[in-house]
């Protein structure tokens, strides 16, 4: 577990850098005063508001103030909702995580069998078909796919609800829309990973024992092929969360993505900062988890 502690320690500079990056990004974004104040406000009123928000201080002072608060867990208040920004984000977190996990599950369900099949039936018609499908899945922007899914599966044949969050059925379409791109990526990855593993000596050993081909593939090859896939999958979390920005909008899914887009549009900096920070932590955590899984799958790597 020392390894885990070590990775956690390594994330400290990363988190620190993230706050810096986001802070700079958000501060160059200009000030939100004009969006916060009545149109008829005078220049003096604007100035006063700026002053009270601390925007007149030099930027590094602002950063230190901000970091000071942040250490206390205070991201400041959302000026749109006039409540604690962090709470707003955390309120939305479950919806986004739910969507992200469901999409990952869908991606896995789609990509694992297809990836394996196209690897063992290499260069067959099926392989070509799967590869083609994967390219198509990658080429489709997910808003487009989302809209199409709604049109066909919710409006035309009315199998799934159109949008919103609630029952299990509500989850299906958005996670397909979001998961497909990832599935496409993963299918190709699993395919090449499987191909590499299938050429390894220990596969030959397994065959020389007289194992059935299915056993050779599912037991001996797949477990090994998964190892690189897990790492890449973790790297995809970031893409996945990025994808929720769009998917949530299309499907009116009340998660962090929607909150963020609005926060950016309204220059609600506190919320943007809190959300980016939380997302970053989420991404880092999922990478750590992947690392752990990786270690579980691959006994060659020691824990200490």
């Amino acid at each position, binding site marked *: 577990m020392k390894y885990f502690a070590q990775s956690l320690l390594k994330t400290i500079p990363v988190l620190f850098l993230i706050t810096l990056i986001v802070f700079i990004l958000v501060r160059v974004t*200009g000030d939100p005063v004009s969006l916060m104040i*009545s*149109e008829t406000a005078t220049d003096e*009123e604007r100035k006063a508001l700026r002053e009270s928000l601390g925007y007149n201080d030099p930027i590094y002072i602002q950063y230190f103030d901000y970091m000071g608060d942040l250490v206390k867990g205070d991201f400041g208040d959302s000026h749109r909702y*006039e409540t604690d920004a962090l709470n707003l984000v955390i*309120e939305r977190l479950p919806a986004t995580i739910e969507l992200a996990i469901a999409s990952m599950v869908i991606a896995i369900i789609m990509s694992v069998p297809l990836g394996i099949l196209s690897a063992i039936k290499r260069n067959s018609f099926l392989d070509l078909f799967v590869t083609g499908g994967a390219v198509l899945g990658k080429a489709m922007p997910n808003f487009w796919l989302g809209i199409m899914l709604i049109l066909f599966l919710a409006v035309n044949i009315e199998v799934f609800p*159109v*949008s919103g969050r609630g029952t299990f*059925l509500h989850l299906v379409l958005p996670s397909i829309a979001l998961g497909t791109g990832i599935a496409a990526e993963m299918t190709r990855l699993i395919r090449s990973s499987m191909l590499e593993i299938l050429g390894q000596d220990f596969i030959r050993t397994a065959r020389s024992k007289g194992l059935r081909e299915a056993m050779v593939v599912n037991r001996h090859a797949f477990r090994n092929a998964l190892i690189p896939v897990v790492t890449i999958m973790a790297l995809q979390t970031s893409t996945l969360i990025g994808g929720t920005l769009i998917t949530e909008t299309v499907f009116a899914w009340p998660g962090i993505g929607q909150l963020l887009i609005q926060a950016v549009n309204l220059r609600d900096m506190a919320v943007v900062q809190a959300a980016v920070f939380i997302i970053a932590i989420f991404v880092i955590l999922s990478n750590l988890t992947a690392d752990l899984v990786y270690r579980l799958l691959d006994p060659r790597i020691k824990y200490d």
Partner: protein
Amino acid sequence: SGGESESEGSGDPEENSDSKRLVIANGTDIVSFDIHDHNNTSTEAVHVNMFNYLVRNDAEEGFVSDLAENWENIDENTWTFTLEEGVTFHNGEELTAEDVKYTLERVANDDTLLEYGSYQQIEEVEILNDYEFNIHTHESEPALLNRLSRLGSGILPKDYIESEGWDVFLEEPVGSGPYKLKEWRKDDQLVLEPFEDYFGEEPKWEEVVFRTIPEDSTRVSEVLTGGADIAVNIPPTDIERIEQEDGVSIVTSPSQRVMLFALRTQGDYPTADPKVREAIDLAIDKEAIVDSLLEGYGTPTRTRVTPGNVGANEDLYDTQVYDPEKAKELLAEAGYENGVNITLSAPNGRYLKDKESVELMQAMLEEVGITAELEMLEWSAFSTRYSDKDFEDVFFIAYGNSMFDASLALQRLTKEQAAGETDYDNPETEQLLQDAMSNMDPEERVEQYQKAQEIIAEDRPQIYLYQIDSIYGVNDRVDFTPKLSEMLYVDEITLK
């Protein structure tokens, strides 16, 4: 859509036809329950079901009573009101003149509130007794009733707020309206339930759900599948689709929104030349834009004060000047035989078909020799530039008018407010506007405004293009007549 208990979503629009649950799909969530700190029509459209105004402005009938039983203008600067008795808030407290004083004086005095500008005219609310009070204005204020019947005019529970604090109020708002808040899941749905002790007519719906669905096509799909009874802001493109589907139809209404160009009338902008401004006006075929992009759901106008507003000049409504040949001549006269370049700034994604309209108009301008360089801005960037008065020659914007009065519509063209933006300065207009501002003679005041509109239509500090209609997709099980104000009084929506 909604909560776990429902079974909608997979049904045809006709199904669940007599459910007493009304689902309305909005494009954006409400901003806040701080009724004074937003300037957002769709938020108010929800609020009106939870809060009551003193008076309501009904386009046809004029001002009708809501909380105020009657009212009277007793002198230039003073109005007296009598409240309905026995009105209670959702928490059981009675609504009295104290609450009115608290509410109105808050917004009239706190300059950080977004609605401050529209209420600062109020000097004081003087309590006579529990049910009677006087409103004193700083100056004579002919449009006071208009002010009191618009955005942010709901009456708040003073005791509740003072004892619990604003933070609690924002989480658990309390009003006096027919519906009270059941649940608000941000960016998802806001659920209202009937308030049994409502002082007026008994609430009709068992539950009202306002859903937030930002993507237009998704909203359309929801109304098509019965996931929503009413969907607002239907893109004109989808009208035909909805009309063709059984069980749903399109309902439209003119709105208060007028699209316009604001132009620099001074300095070394080409638009400082009135001929160029006129040429721009003449170059644009508003009719064609309405017909094509809006599928006819809009009306060309030459004034911002459209019918239904006090002071409207109907001569300038539903009409356009369009004459590209003349535009060319004017440009030549202005010395731009070889064309002229202007910068046209516009928000992107803010208004119905904003980008397309601007692209189309850019093409029309090009026809007569005006090369418009487009500067499409995302809304907050646009609004920063807007409040900094930082645009070049021309910018494109839509104005609404929650006051239903010409004063708000024309205010921006007074010398003081126009400075830095259009820099419009016509002493005659200025005089008319200033006079009308405090003229307590309604008829004369209307005349002044109408005259001003005529002058403005010729001076063109702003070129009015067209008024856009609100388009709703409505499930046939409900009867819904949209309002000019775009307010969604759910009890006026009925089951068929």
